[in-house]
């Protein structure tokens, strides 16, 4: 077991957790507006997946993308400033929580129309294939996306054109207030992939190492085999759909059940069991994450709003 790797994954997951907890706090203080969709409980999916991909592989995500952005870029300041709607944000304050971007890090958003980004991810993979480049595109979306036409068309085109894209379904059991079983009459979302047909795998999304290994294989298959791959990660969001959602549609027991497999807790236990780090060391790492997030909040607070007379910029290329 690679000690450095485990500690690295742990750091990332904790950083993301603390980042979003701080964001939730700022939201209640009115510093963040609009929709805020937290990833708390799902951290192993984004962290495991992105740790298995190359930095040069493309990432296309949804409105629930803070984790993916941080796992790819580590840019806590730019992320928090974006949430605060500041000029220093990763989208200059224009995008907000749902629209993070970093072209330099090949982080391609941040899309908020369910399913709409799936064909876009296929298109990014199309470009890699067109240019004969080795890059793979990772496309994240939720379980509730499986009934959208754009999901179907994106998978169908990726399949018929053999595009190097890994579709990662973050099955957190719910689409807003709707449990998956009410909208999907098949057991797993992955079943849908078979009809294209597309290779697929189902993985425990709360085990960061399992997530990492499954993604490694999927990315390699896409890169070497030039085929799309469908990965379904079973996970759970601890919070509501967004800050506006009290999530009354779930029982305390159900939530507790999943909290018992909190991906950060699980990884921490493993690290301790393997003697890689002591509980104290892990607490230190946590404290470092908290400090980094505090710095990001301070940075965001101190940052200026976008220039009023920039409002019309970037509608078109000047």
């Amino acid at each position, binding site marked *: 077991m690679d000690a450095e790797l485990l500690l690295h994954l742990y750091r990332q997951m904790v950083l993301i957790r603390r980042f979003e907890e701080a964001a939730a706090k700022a939201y209640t203080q009115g510093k*963040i*507006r*609009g*929709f805020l969709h937290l990833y708390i409980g799902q951290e192993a999916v984004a962290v495991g997946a992105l740790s298995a991909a190359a930095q040069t592989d493309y990432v296309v995500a949804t409105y629930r993308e803070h984790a993916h952005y941080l796992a790819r870029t580590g840019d806590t300041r730019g992320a928090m400033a974006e949430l605060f*709607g*500041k*000029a220093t944000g990763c*989208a200059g*304050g*224009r*995008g*907000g929580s*749902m*629209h993070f971007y970093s072209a330099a890090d090949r982080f391609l958003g941040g*899309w*908020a*129309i*369910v*399913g*709409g980004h799936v064909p876009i991810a296929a298109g990014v993979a199309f470009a890699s294939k067109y240019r004969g480049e080795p890059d793979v595109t990772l496309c994240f979306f939720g379980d*509730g*996306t499986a*009934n*959208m*036409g*754009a999901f179907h068309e994106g998978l169908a085109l990726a399949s018929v054109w053999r595009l190097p894209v890994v579709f990662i379904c973050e099955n957190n059991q719910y*689409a*807003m*207030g*709707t449990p998956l079983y*009410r*909208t*999907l009459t098949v057991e797993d979302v992955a079943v849908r992939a078979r009809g294209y047909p597309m290779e697929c795998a189902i993985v425990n999304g709360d085990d960061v190492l399992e997530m990492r290994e499954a993604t490694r294989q999927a990315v390699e298959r896409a890169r070497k085999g030039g085929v799309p791959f469908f990965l379904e990660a079973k996970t759970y969001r601890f919070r509501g759909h967004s800050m506006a959602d009290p999530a009354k*549609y779930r029982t305390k027991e159900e939530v507790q059940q999943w909290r018992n497999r909190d991906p950060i807790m699980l990884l921490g236990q493993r690290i301790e069991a393997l003697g890689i780090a002591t509980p104290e060391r892990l607490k230190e790492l946590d404290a470092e994450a908290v400090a980094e997030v505090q710095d990001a909040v301070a940075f965001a607070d101190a940052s200026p*709003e*976008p220039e*009023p007379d*920039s*409002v*019309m910029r970037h*509608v078109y290329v000047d």
Partner: protein
Amino acid sequence: MSTEPRTLAFREALREAMVEEMERDGSIFLMGEEVGHYNGAYKVSEGMLERFGERRVVDTPIAEAGFAGVGIGAAMVGLRPIIEFMTWNFSLVAYDQLVSNAAKLRYMSNGQFTLPIVFRGPGGAAHGVAAQHSQALESIYAHIPGLKVVVPATPADAKGLLKAAIRDDNPVLFMESELMYGMKGPVPEGEHVVPLGVADTKRPGRDVTIVTWGKMLHVSLAAAAQLAEEGIEAEVIDLRSIRPLDAEAVFASIRKTHRCVIVQEGWPFAGVAAEIAARIVEHVFDELDHPPVRVTSLDVPHPYAKNLEALVLPDAARVSATVREIVPHRGG
């Protein structure tokens, strides 16, 4: 007959319209994302599942094109669906269903089919939800013959217009606003139906006509209040329905004021405001002491940052400033 009014929130008025109509007619059902067990993303349908059951309050998967089409099919054979889009932004994936199918079926079939269907949900900008969630889309739908487009601005009109929309035998697109759901106002109990295609003068005035609808009514009324203090009496006309459009009400007011400002939340280019300006000059050109002026959202995707967002949307200050430019200074 309406009896004496009580105060309801906008969302309650909408709910009352749906509940009363569904009690009256078993062929009416409500379908959409989270309308049932979740009681509505914005709680418009709160309690309706409990009241009517899963048969008539139908939660859908996320598949707008699919359930919009389902509504059209159900309406073709005599049901009267109310299809809720969680927001109108998401109707864009169903645009083809509304434009190619709902709008054209009756004509293509030479009147053999009737489509008594309502598509409703909130539209326009909420607070800080950014470009993909902040679109006022009445213009791209009102452009299409075969569709009706209704935009209520008060709780009373919300109830009366929604009842009229549900009873209408044509596809009616009904556009609400997240930001107005909590707005309270007097709402007549029971049978209160506001006919589609009839504008309402929400404030009388002699100096200038402000034509508007939906959320912008309140911006316009605020501007009119400011202007009144300066001695400028603005007449504020709430179109209420965009298609059919009560152009006569606009013309009549202009014959009195000879000046007109059109206030629209959406984008300017080929928007409803442009249609109104064009109609005005086509019909009452000689009545005008000044050309009609449009006050609209800036021609830009909606930004997230609070300060930019404030610049993009029309506000009372922009409306009054525009009015001041075209009304000769009087009094004070």
